[in-house]
C-alpha cells in the first residue's frame, strides 16, 4: 500500500489547517454561505437533508486495518455509529457538525486519509478496480497510476474551479470493474504490440441526466506523458466546457457537442504545447510509487483444498469469492447487502471486525467496491472457513455478490436533499421479495441499481435492471429501466414505460425476471436475454 512521505503528510496537514481557518471564518460571519460552500465542498462537507454530511476519500478503494479502525472511531465519536460506503469508493457520514469537521479531518490525517476534493467542481477521488493487485486477469496493478494522478490532481491550481465535477477511473484489465467508460476520464493501462505499457484514454462518459459512454480519444499514451495528457484533457475542458447551464457543464456534453474527433484534435494540440512545459513527473516517480504496491509475500505452497461440507459456507464460497493471481488464494467479498438492509451501510463494530479480519487474513488490506461492498483481496483458501464464520456471526456473510440482492442504491430521499424519491426502502423490499421467493439463486448474475433522482448516483443507467425515483406531483414514483451495464460490455439502460408506485415497482421487477426465466437460453444472464429478445416481451408483461 502507498505510504505518505513527509511531503504528502505536510500537504494533508496544511489542508486541515486551511479548512479549520475557513470554518472559523464562516462561523464568525466573515465568509457568506455562498463563498464558503465551494470551500467546504472541496473538503467533502455537504449540507444535506438532516445535517452536514462528510465524504471521506478512500483513494482507489484501498485501505488498511488502521485506517478502517479510524473510520469506525470517527463514526462513533462524531457521528451516530455508522457510515455509508459509496459508488465511488468513498465513505459518507450523515450527522456531522460543522464545528467538528476540522477535528475529523485532523483525525483522518493521522492515518494518511483525507476528504480532499471529494466534492465540488474539481477533480474527485480517483477510483480503480477493487481487485487491483489481486485479479488473475490484470495487465498490471492500476493503482500506482491512480496514485500518480491523485497527487497531480490534489490542489491543482488551474483545475479547482472547473465547469463541473470531474471523475477519473483507472483500470488495467479487459474486464472493467470500475465503470471506467462512465467516467469523465477513464484510463485503461494496456500494452502495445511490442509489449510496452501505455494508457488508453476514454473521455466524456458519465451518468446523470444525460448518460454517455466515453469514446476512446487516444488508445496509447506513453506512460511518461500520462500526466501531461491528462492536463491537456482538463485544460480544453476548463476553457471550453459550458458554464451557462450546470446541467450541460460536464465534459461529456463538450465532447458530444464538439464531436470526439474535434475534442481530440484540441487535446492533441494542447498536449503538443504542454510537452514543452515540464509538467510531467519523471518515470522514477512512477517507479517510486510502484514500490509501495508490490505483492505481499504469498505462500507458494498454500493449501488449495476447501472443505465444502457446510452448505451455507459452500454457497458463500461460490458466490462471494473471486479468482486470485496467486495459487491457494482468493479475493473474498464482504457483502454490505444483508436482505432487508441498507445497501452500503456498515456500523462502527462491523468496520472494526472487517479491519481485524483483514489484518488476520488479508495482509492487512481492504478494498471498497463501487458496488458498495468490501473486499479482502488476498485470502488464503485455508482461512476461508474461519473468515466466513466470523463474518456470518456479524451479519456480514450474505452470499449474494452480483445477485439481485446485491443492489446499488443511492441514499435517496431518506438522506439526500437532491433526491425526489426514496431509494433505500425500494432496495429493501426487492431484496426481501427475492430472498423470500428463493429466486435469488436461480436468477444468477443480475445487477440492479436504484437512483432517487436523475443525477444517477445509484447508477440506474448501468443496471441490468435500473430504477429511477421521480417526483410525480409530490408522490414518489419509480421508472423501470432495462439493459444497462457498467462493465466491459458497457451499455445504457432504456426506460420500459410509465412508472410505478413503491409496491408496484417491486412487482414490476419480479415480472421482468419472470420473462427472463421463461425466455432465457442456456447460460444466458438476464442482460444477455434482454439483448437478444429486446424490450417488447418485457413491456408486454409489464403493461399488457
Amino acid at each position, binding site marked *: 500500500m502507498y505510504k505518505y512521505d513527509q511531503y504528502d503528510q505536510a500537504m494533508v496537514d496544511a489542508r486541515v489547517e486551511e479548512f479549520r481557518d475557513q470554518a472559523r471564518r464562516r462561523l464568525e460571519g466573515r465568509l457568506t454561505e455562498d463563498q464558503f460552500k465551494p470551500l467546504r465542498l472541496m473538503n467533502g462537507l455537504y449540507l444535506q437533508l438532516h445535517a452536514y454530511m462528510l465524504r471521506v476519500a478512500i483513494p482507489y478503494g484501498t485501505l488498511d486495518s488502521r485506517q478502517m479502525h479510524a473510520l469506525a472511531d470517527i463514526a462513533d465519536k462524531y457521528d451516530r455509529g455508522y457510515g455509508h460506503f459509496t459508488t465511488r469508493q468513498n465513505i459518507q457520514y450523515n450527522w456531522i457538525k460543522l464545528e467538528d469537521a476540522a477535528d475529523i479531518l485532523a483525525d483522518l490525517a493521522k492515518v494518511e486519509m483525507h476528504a480532499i476534493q471529494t466534492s465540488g467542481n474539481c477533480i474527485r477521488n480517483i477510483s480503480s478496480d477493487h481487485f487491483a493487485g489481486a485479479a488473475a486477469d490484470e495487465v498490471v496493478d492500476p493503482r500506482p497510476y491512480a496514485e500518480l494522478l491523485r*497527487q497531480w490532481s490534489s*490542489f*491543482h491550481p*488551474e483545475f479547482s*474551479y472547473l465547469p463541473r465535477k470531474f471523475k477519473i477511473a483507472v483500470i488495467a484489465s479487459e474486464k472493467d470493474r470500475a465503470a471506467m467508460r462512465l467516467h469523465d476520464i477513464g484510463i485503461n493501462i494496456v500494452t502495445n504490440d511490442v509489449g510496452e505499457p501505455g494508457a488508453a484514454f476514454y473521455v466524456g462518459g458519465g451518468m446523470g441526466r444525460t448518460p454517455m459512454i466515453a469514446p476512446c480519444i487516444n488508445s496509447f499514451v506513453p506512460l511518461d506523458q500520462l500526466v501531461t495528457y491528462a492536463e491537456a484533457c482538463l485544460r480544453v475542458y*476548463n476553457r471550453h466546457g459550458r458554464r451557462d447551464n450546470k446541467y450541460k457543464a460536464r465534459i461529456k456534453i463538450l465532447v458530444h457537442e464538439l464531436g470526439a474527433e474535434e475534442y481530440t484534435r484540441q487535446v492533441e494540440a494542447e498536449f503538443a504545447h504542454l510537452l514543452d512545459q515540464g509538467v510531467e*513527473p519523471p518515470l522514477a516517480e512512477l517507479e*517510486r510509487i510502484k514500490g509501495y504496491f508490490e505483492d505481499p509475500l504469498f505462500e507458494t505452497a498454500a493449501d488449495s483444498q476447501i472443505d465444502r461440507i457446510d452448505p451455507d459456507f459452500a454457497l458463500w464460497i461460490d458466490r462471494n469469492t473471486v479468482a486470485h493471481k496467486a495459487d491457494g488464494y482468493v479475493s473474498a467479498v464482504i457483502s454490505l447487502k444483508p436482505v432487508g438492509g441498507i445497501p452500503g451501510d456498515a456500523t462502527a463494530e462491523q468496520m472494526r471486525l472487517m479491519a481485524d479480519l483483514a489484518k488476520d487474513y488479508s495482509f492487512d488490506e481492504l478494498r471498497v467496491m463501487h458496488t458498495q461492498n468490501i473486499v479482502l483481496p488476498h485470502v488464503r483458501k485455508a482461512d476461508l472457513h474461519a473468515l466466513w464464520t466470523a463474518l456470518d456471526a456479524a451479519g456480514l456473510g450474505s452470499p449474494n455478490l452480483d445477485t439481485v440482492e446485491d443492489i446499488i442504491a443511492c441514499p435517496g430521499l431518506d438522506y439526500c436533499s437532491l433526491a425526489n424519491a426514496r431509494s433505500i426502502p425500494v432496495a429493501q423490499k426487492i431484496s426481501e421479495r427475492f430472498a423470500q421467493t428463493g429466486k435469488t439463486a436461480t436468477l444468477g448474475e443480475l445487477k440492479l441499481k436504484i437512483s432517487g433522482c436523475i443525477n444517477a448516483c445509484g447508477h440506474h443507467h448501468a443496471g441490468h435492471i435500473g430504477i429511477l425515483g421521480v417526483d410525480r406531483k409530490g408522490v414518489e414514483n419509480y421508472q423501470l429501466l432495462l439493459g444497462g451495464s457498467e462493465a466491459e460490455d458497457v451499455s445504457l439502460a432504456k426506460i420500459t414505460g410509465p412508472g410505478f408506485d413503491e409496491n408496484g415497482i417491486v412487482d414490476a421487477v419480479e415480472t421482468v425476471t419472470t420473462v427472463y426465466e421463461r425466455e432465457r437460453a442456456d447460460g444466458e444472464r438476464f442482460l444477455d436475454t434482454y439483448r437478444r429478445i429486446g424490450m417488447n416481451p418485457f413491456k408486454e408483461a409489464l403493461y399488457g
Partner: protein
Amino acid sequence: MADTLRYRDDEPVDHPAVTVDSFLDQSNASAVRIEPGDDARELLPHLDRLALVEVNFPAFGDGRGYSSARILREAGYEGELRAVGDVLVDQLAYMRRCGFDAFEPDQRFDMEDVKSAFERWPEVYQKAADTRTSIWAKRHP
C-alpha cells in the same frame, strides 16, 4: 476603486485596460482585459507590447481565468497579470501558482488572511506557472 495588491517592483501601467477586441484593432494600448470567454491565445502575437493583462472574474466560481493566466505565462509573458473582480482570499494561492502577480478584488481583503493564504502550502504537487519546485522534483533531484 478597490485596492490592488501587487507583487512586482515595476511601475504600474497608468492607463485603463481595453477589451481584447479593441486591443487587437488598435496598436497603441499596452493594457488589456480578458473576459472569461476570451481566448488568451489571441494575445500571443502581441505580448511584446503588453505591460498589463487584467483577467476578469465576474464570478469566483468561473475558473477559465486560471487557464488564461497559465497560457500567457507559458508563452513567456512577463508583464503584470492581474486578477480582477470576484476574487476571494481563499483563491489567492492557486492564482499565484497560475501566474497572477497582482490582485484587484471587488471586496477588500483582510491582510492577515492574505498572509496566511500565501503561507499556507509548504509544498506543491505540480509544476505550474510560478517558480515553486514540485514535490516530485524534490523527490528526484
